């Protein structure tokens, strides 16, 4: 660099060597935030839409059927579970506890399971569900965009999905997300 040039822009070039560092910091922050994101949590297009219609036999009473229409006028939880699903077992005590509180009815969707396995599983770990619908082929699961059991939906009185949880429902999710939302939805007419 010539002396003239250096004299031209002493202030401009004084901090220029910090530019790569700044760029690095920006990138580092971006990547760090990225680390905290869970790629498995895909935003569901169903939130804010009517819960897809289905009609399925019940798990315990094969001759009785259940449809999401039966829950019209109630705020309720739809929980997708299966006896083969390991994380459902982790989630289960939270649901049993929530059912005891009686804040809202919980309906189970027994997803791609064997009937006797599902019934035995509930007998062993407790049954938090008002009833479970039996989705043997997983067709209803596809309509609800299920891809990782367990999944949980909060559905309002008008039958609109208001919240979806992919993965296990933790006590934090219950106290911070589900309970406040259900209270709010119950106030709606």
């Amino acid at each position, binding site marked *: 660099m010539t002396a*003239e040039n250096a004299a031209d822009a002493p202030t401009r070039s004084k901090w220029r060597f910090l530019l790569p560092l700044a760029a690095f910091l920006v990138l580092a922050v971006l990547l760090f935030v990225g680390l905290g994101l869970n790629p498995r949590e895909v*935003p569901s297009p169903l939130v804010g839409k009517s819960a897809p219609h289905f009609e399925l036999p019940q798990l315990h009473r094969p001759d009785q059927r259940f449809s999401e229409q039966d829950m019209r006028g109630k705020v309720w939880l739809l929980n997708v579970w299966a006896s083969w699903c390991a994380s459902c077992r982790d989630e289960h005590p939270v649901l049993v506890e929530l059912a005891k509180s009686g804040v809202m009815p919980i309906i189970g969707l027994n997803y791609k399971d064997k009937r006797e396995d599902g019934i035995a599983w509930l007998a062993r770990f407790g049954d938090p569900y008002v009833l479970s619908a039996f989705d043997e082929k997983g067709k209803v699961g*596809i309509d609800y965009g299920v891809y990782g059991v367990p999944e949980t939906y909060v559905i309002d009185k008008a039958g609109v999905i208001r919240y979806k949880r992919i993965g296990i429902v933790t006590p934090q999710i219950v106290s911070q997300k589900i309970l406040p939302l259900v209270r709010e939805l119950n106030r709606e007419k």
Partner: protein
Amino acid sequence: MKSKLLTALLLLAVALPASAGEAAPTAADVALEKRVMAISEELRCLVCQNQTIADSNAGLAVDLRNEVREKLAAGMSEREIIDFMVARYGDFVLYRPPVKITTVLLWFGPALLLALGLWLFLRTVLRRRASAMAPLSSTEHARAAALLKNTEGDR
């Protein structure tokens, strides 16, 4: 040697369930199967996110392939089936994300970075060349002469 054996065993352990899980539904209609695969190539398997449902043998991928097959057999068009999947699983199910405001950076970010890099590179090269060619000014001549004199004086 021991580690080689271990590696071989591990590889085998990985390969075995993969082949055991193979589910190749036999469709009599080869043309239909071709269309099923063509659509499946466009759909992401949400369980194993870097695979399409054509590549994956996860339970959900098999189910979705069957769903595609049934819908094709029922006379639905490719477009309708893709829309059906997007309505349930969101844009994420598309293996090629659509160009939208939220995906502009994804689509054009790399080109933008390349352009920025080229611009910086060219600017640096041109500046260097310009400063190398520029003749010395009189003050610079004087400074150079003074410096030279100093070094001679030191000897």
